[in-house]
């Protein structure tokens, strides 16, 4: 099973959704700026969570699955 490391800090998780949750809980500029480099907006991801469903986290989880470094 792959583990994913957060692209901006040392957090590691085997679940991209859990990593997305960690990611969106961070308020520092490093995390927010990384989103911009991937064409994502922190504000948009967050506000999409105001509707029922998990759209913001789902979107970010997909991106992290591809982009987050994999570790053992």
């Amino acid at each position, binding site marked *: 099973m792959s583990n994913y490391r957060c692209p901006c800090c040392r957090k590691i998780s085997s679940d991209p959704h859990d990593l997305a949750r960690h990611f969106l809980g961070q308020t520092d500029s490093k995390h927010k700026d990384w989103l911009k480099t991937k064409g994502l907006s922190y*504000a948009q991801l*967050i506000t999409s969570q*105001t509707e*029922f469903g998990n759209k913001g986290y789902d979107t970010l989880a997909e991106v992290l699955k591809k982009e987050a470094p994999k570790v053992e």
Partner: protein
Amino acid sequence: MNEYSIIGKPTTNVDGVAKVTGEAVYTFDMTLPNMLHGKLLRSPHPHARIVSIDTSEAEKLPGVKAVITGKDTPGGKYGLWRRFRELADQEILATTKVRFIGDPVAAVAATSEDIAEKALDLINVEYEPLPAVFEPLEAIKDDAPLVHDDFENNINATRHIEWGNVDKAFKNADYVREDRFNLLSQHPAPMEVHSSIASYEKGSGRLTVWSSTQSPYFLQLGLADALKMREGNIRVIKPHVGGAFGGKNSTMPDSVNAAILSMKTGRPVKIVFNREEEFSATEKRTAMHLAIKIGLKKDGTLLAKEVKIITDGGAYTGLGATTLYLAGTWITFPYKTPNYRYDGFRTYTNKMWSSSVRGFGAVSAVYAAETQIDRAARDLGIDPIEIRRRNAMTTGYEAPGQYKVESCGILPCIDKMEQRVKEKWANLDKDEGIGFAAFAYMSGGIFNWIDTPYAFSGAMVKVNIDGTVDLFTQASDIGQGHNTVSVMICAEELGIGIEDIRLHPADTATTLTDLGAWGSRETLMNGNAVKAAAAEVKKKLIEVARMKLGENIVYDLDAKDKRIYIALRPERGFSYYDIVKDAIKGNDGEPLIGIGHYTPHRKGMVSPAYAMGIMGVRAKVDRETGQVEVKEVIVVHDCGQTINPLGARGQVEGSIQMGLGFGLCEDLPTENGLILNPSFVDYKLIRIREMPQIELFDVPTYDPEGPYGAKESAEATTAPTAPALANAIYNAVGVEFDSNVLRLEKVLKALKEKEAKEKGKGRR
């Protein structure tokens, strides 16, 4: 059941004589020699850049001793969220811009209040008004004006809580419903307005502050942060407090500006808010938009719950970020929720900020959840008590990654309610209805966003040669009766009388840290510290007694009724007073003291223990006027072990007054950021003739974490009142509401709409 001497017995207030004779001193009453009076100049604009401030005319006014603006302060920002520095967003006085009507920009110290007020009129501030935003749903839009530059889309804080798989669970549910609510704000409205006196000692550079505060320690930290001083050079003393209800946790402009004015003038400075400032510029309940979706089996078993909340944070953070987290937590109580997802957003708006008010998110959240569950019960044809029983938590229930419930009396509470309702409310009049709401609440939080290195509560007991006891605790009695609880616990543990103990409360210089009176933490957390401190002394006394008795060490000794004796042979023992003398004289005169402290460990993310219960409300609706009369209330609660039944009853009844206010009449209508009713004339509180008869039943459980098994009481009961009432109104006349403050015109309108709908149906 344990047989206690004092715990559980009705005990009058240790501050009783002081309070009924007018001798109790509140910060509001205090004067110091050479004291000046301070006033704050507040922004008339909800959002504006400060172009210039000219204080020269004010400074010339005879009697004015100092005028300060932002440039006279150490600068920087402060707030309660010390662990998350970006949320420490308050300034002592606004420097570059103001963010709500009432945001302070200058302060004056003068020889009288009148002169200070006149001086305010002489301060010239040039503002450049900026576009403002007042509604959270507008504030999160991309083109909304930013209240704080670093917070995109005005999102101040977010919370995500999730366990299980809600999406899958919804698919498997027999019944799914979504409801949306708009929960309004409410003001704590304590009878004593915010008051502070600061006295700066020039020689030592030390500051003493007396304040009407819920937490001397929080105030000490906030002042140290704001003034860039060492904490230890700031002493905060809490005199009697005329109520707080959540609005006196933060370091507010009265205390911190009084401090700077005192530093500048070299004299004590007192700042007291007037009632208009109290309503319009002090912390209030967080208003929120709340969407809640539940999935149930057809027998009413809850499978999934999803909640989205957007809160109206106002201009600064205060404790609002905690309210955001807790609203998303209380909305799951007291039911087993196998799958849950919560997203909470706190937005900045250009209004006075919202923070914590009695219930701390529960009042708003439970209104939504408990009216919704009734709607679901109606659709499924299930009795409202039964649907709650079916889903109730049980001992040991765990919400994965969030909380675990140890003692849990919700089921016996529900049973008792059902029984009592059959006995008492079997016959209803026309247009009368009964409604229920279940509730649960924390006994203090495990959170440490204040970033304290200390135990969450500490206490010290000193026993004097004559057996009198000095009890030192920093815990705050803000009216809830905690002083009495502390003394009761100390007396019970040492086996002595209330009259033997003198309490020294709420002084940061002479007592060990306690985090203050919020989140219903004092009984459990400070109670544990007091008990531990007393236990340490008791251990010493018992050792002395054991030596004197010369008995076999397997015999246990007890301390009770001012004696220390062999538990199995009570006739063999000594007077407490004799043992105290021996303990001191026989130990080289060493002081006989005990120190105790408490911090919750391994107790999940929320609280070490939860009080639970259910409330029933019987109400009558007048169809002609829309007036709702609340006739009777029944409360059945599990608070572990009630320490003082008198105090607990008083607290529960007081919480119902506030809950009814939330449900019927307390409202802060705002127009362009201006609160329209900042006085008791227009802000309606429930008065004596509107209070119903209340019956309170106790279902004692025993929580291993609490002192003598005790948990919180009476912050929890603020939450179920309004939803139980709303449910009663539905059962009386068949109308539902998606908001609180059910004034008669709202009820009348709903009745008329229902009538029109029914007539419309009839015509076809």
